């Protein structure tokens, strides 16, 4: 068993081993995949040789939790680098802590959740992750395709997320809205404060409250199974097109049963790997690798490394076709292929 990857570290390891700590923005299974990637990357890029080890820290305490952790790590002198998925892009306090860490010579990058780029771009040198607005557009396009295939050219839809004003949620929702266009009316954006029970109740209420719904959009990973389940339980599945983000085990199961039309899947696994790669390079002063990852550094958005997006559809006869998407950004996968990929890395979610 790979106990060493656990939340806790051997107390007698040599202090010369420096830690790279990955701080998440929540405790979604999404992150277990990312952690797997991190462990993979640790081996792949042989951090041990460089006297480094990657360490995964799940923050379930929101902004305060992240601030608290960043402060903690600032005091621990075996921490060499921090990779963080910022929970609030505009949170000045988090920015301050990031800057403070770098003042102490600790390398900091953002992964998956970036800071507000207009304001705080220089709070971190690099960002690794999805472009959420693109992700949103992709999901919107796919959903629209299915709607078109169903001959539904008007109606309302509701988007579900943990916090509707969280940065990545907002940009995804905006992307979806943009892509679905004016023909379809956004009835509501429902927040569940990451309470799964409430996530379900939100869907139930949406269905009873808005009579003209044609699509239900799940923005955060756990919204997908919530939507699918409720659609099933209220036997209204055929009334809605269901498009969701990420691929929780439950969501995959739901798609197998045909209860989800499309999943736009990020690649947290790759995020993990790339984090190790970049961190090692930054700490080892390996400019070549950095150049390789960020070829057009200095130019606009040159500090962004986008990990791929995947559109996963149940089967080949889905109305969603590869040519709808820009192949450079989006990888089109059928569910079986996607599951095969998961199996390859013994993953359950993505």
């Amino acid at each position, binding site marked *: 068993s790979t106990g060493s990857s656990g939340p806790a570290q051997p107390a007698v390891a040599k202090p010369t081993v420096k830690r790279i700590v990955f701080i998440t923005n929540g*405790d979604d299974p999404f992150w277990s995949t990312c*952690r797997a990637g991190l462990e993979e990357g640790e081996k792949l890029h042989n951090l041990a040789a460089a006297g480094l080890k990657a360490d995964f820290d799940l923050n379930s305490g929101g902004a305060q939790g992240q601030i608290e952790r960043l402060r903690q790590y600032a005091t621990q002198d075996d921490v060499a680098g921090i990779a963080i998925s910022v929970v609030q892009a505009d949170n000045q306090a988090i920015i301050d802590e990031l800057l403070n860490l770098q003042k102490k010579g600790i390398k900091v990058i953002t992964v998956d959740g970036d800071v507000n780029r207009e304001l705080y771009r220089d709070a971190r040198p690099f960002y690794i992750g999805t472009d959420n607005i693109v992700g949103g557009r992709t999901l919107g396009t796919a959903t629209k395709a299915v709607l078109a295939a169903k001959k539904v050219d008007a109606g309302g839809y509701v988007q579900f997320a943990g916090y509707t004003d969280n940065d990545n949620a907002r940009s995804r929702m905006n992307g979806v809205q943009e892509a679905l266009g004016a023909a379809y009316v956004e009835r*509501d954006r429902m927040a569940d404060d990451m309470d*799964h*029970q409430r996530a379900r109740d*939100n869907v139930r209420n949406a*269905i*009873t409250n808005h009579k003209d719904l044609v699509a239900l959009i799940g923005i955060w990973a756990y919204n997908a199974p919530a939507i699918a389940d409720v659609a099933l339980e*209220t036997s209204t599945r055929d009334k809605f097109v269901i498009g969701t983000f990420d691929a929780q085990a439950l969501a995959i*199961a739901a798609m197998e049963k045909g209860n989800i039309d499309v999943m736009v899947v990020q690649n947290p696994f790759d995020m993990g790997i790339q984090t190790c790669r970049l961190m090692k390079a930054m700490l080892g002063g390996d400019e070549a690798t950095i150049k390789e990852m960020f070829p057009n550094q200095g130019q606009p958005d040159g500090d962004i490394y986008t990990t791929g997006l995947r559109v996963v559809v149940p089967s080949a006869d889905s109305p969603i076709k590869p040519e709808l998407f820009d192949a450079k950004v989006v990888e089109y996968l059928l569910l079986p292929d996607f599951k095969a990929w998961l199996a390859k890395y013994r993953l359950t979610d993505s």
Partner: protein
Amino acid sequence: MTATPGQGGPRSIPFQELALVAAIVLVFVLTGVVDRNHTYFTSFQESAIIVLRNTSLLGIIALGAAVVIIAGGIDLSAGSMVAFSATTCALILVLFADPADRRLLSVGALGVFCGISGGVLAGFLVGTLHAWLVTSIKLPPFVATLATLVGLRSFARAMCEFITRERWGSAAQQININTPFFRMLKEHGVWISTGIFLLLAVATWLVLSRTVLGRHIYALGGNEQAARLSGIRTENIKWFAYCFGAMTASIAGIILMADGSVAQPVNLARGYELNAIAAAVVGGCSLQGGVGTVLGTVLGTLFLRLVIDAVSKLIKSNADVYEGMIVGIVVALAVTLTQVRQLTRSGGEFFPGIRGLAAIPTLAIAAGLLAMMSSANVELLKGRMVLFGVGVGIVTLLVLSAVKLLETQRRQTR
């Protein structure tokens, strides 16, 4: 807390329950009428199912809370207990499942049985722990269950990470349950949970109102020393009460797990303990102990959930923002109701002295803000919201001040 004699005594309890029934009918009809879609009338069944699901779930926990409260104790740990039992059950499933099978599809009947009984057993053990802390270590129930409230959840999280790491090689913060049995349970979720709820309610009613044990529970809550001197083994009664409380919570935990087909210790059922206590209190249980009924608790739970649901029908979007306010106001009003007779009779004033004077603006401001915010959902008030809010605030201020004046008058004339 100052005792309120006679409150909820046999004579007054029917009153409480009748009031609740009336309130429930009222809320139902009103909502059905006011709601633009008239959902309650048009799609009665779906609405009923939603309310039932939440009611039965909360109700199961509330029954436990009620018994503990009637016995003169308090159990703050219910929410954590729910998470704990769900996690325990899930982890047992993990151990029974093939390590490669992270969706727990491969768990057989034995695994399921062990899982469920494991969860319930966990409840029993925690209840025993509570009883031990309270009776042998002599901790006040509030402290003992406060400790487990914070302790159990983190215990569950730690276990979850540990076992998954050992079993799967990588720690997980939540466990997805696709085990066929629980999927099945989920399919018929409402009916099963409602069934269990009613079963438990009837059983609890039998125990409380027809058995000697029940009488002793009331006696313990009413006057512990008297109970002890009458030869009642009060410690054992407490043992029963806390075990009952914890076990109902653990049953709810398993249902919740099946319903969400996930066990997530971090925030599963956070704060449910307070809702359960609130439901019991709304149902007429007195925190001084010795007072309360099963029927009242059931009605209280139903009322609470119905009101919450009604609001989500009326305020079409983001109703959950208002849920807390609803619960708070309902609780305050319900308990006030149980006192109203004392209040009026004893010529007690509502706004005595400066204290009262200070309370008036407070209430006015609250009313004004509430009006302003809720007006956002009313078409014809759009744009005039601030005006409306201020108006309501001022009116409240005037009305309350008038009351205050009258009271001062009355006291002068005396």
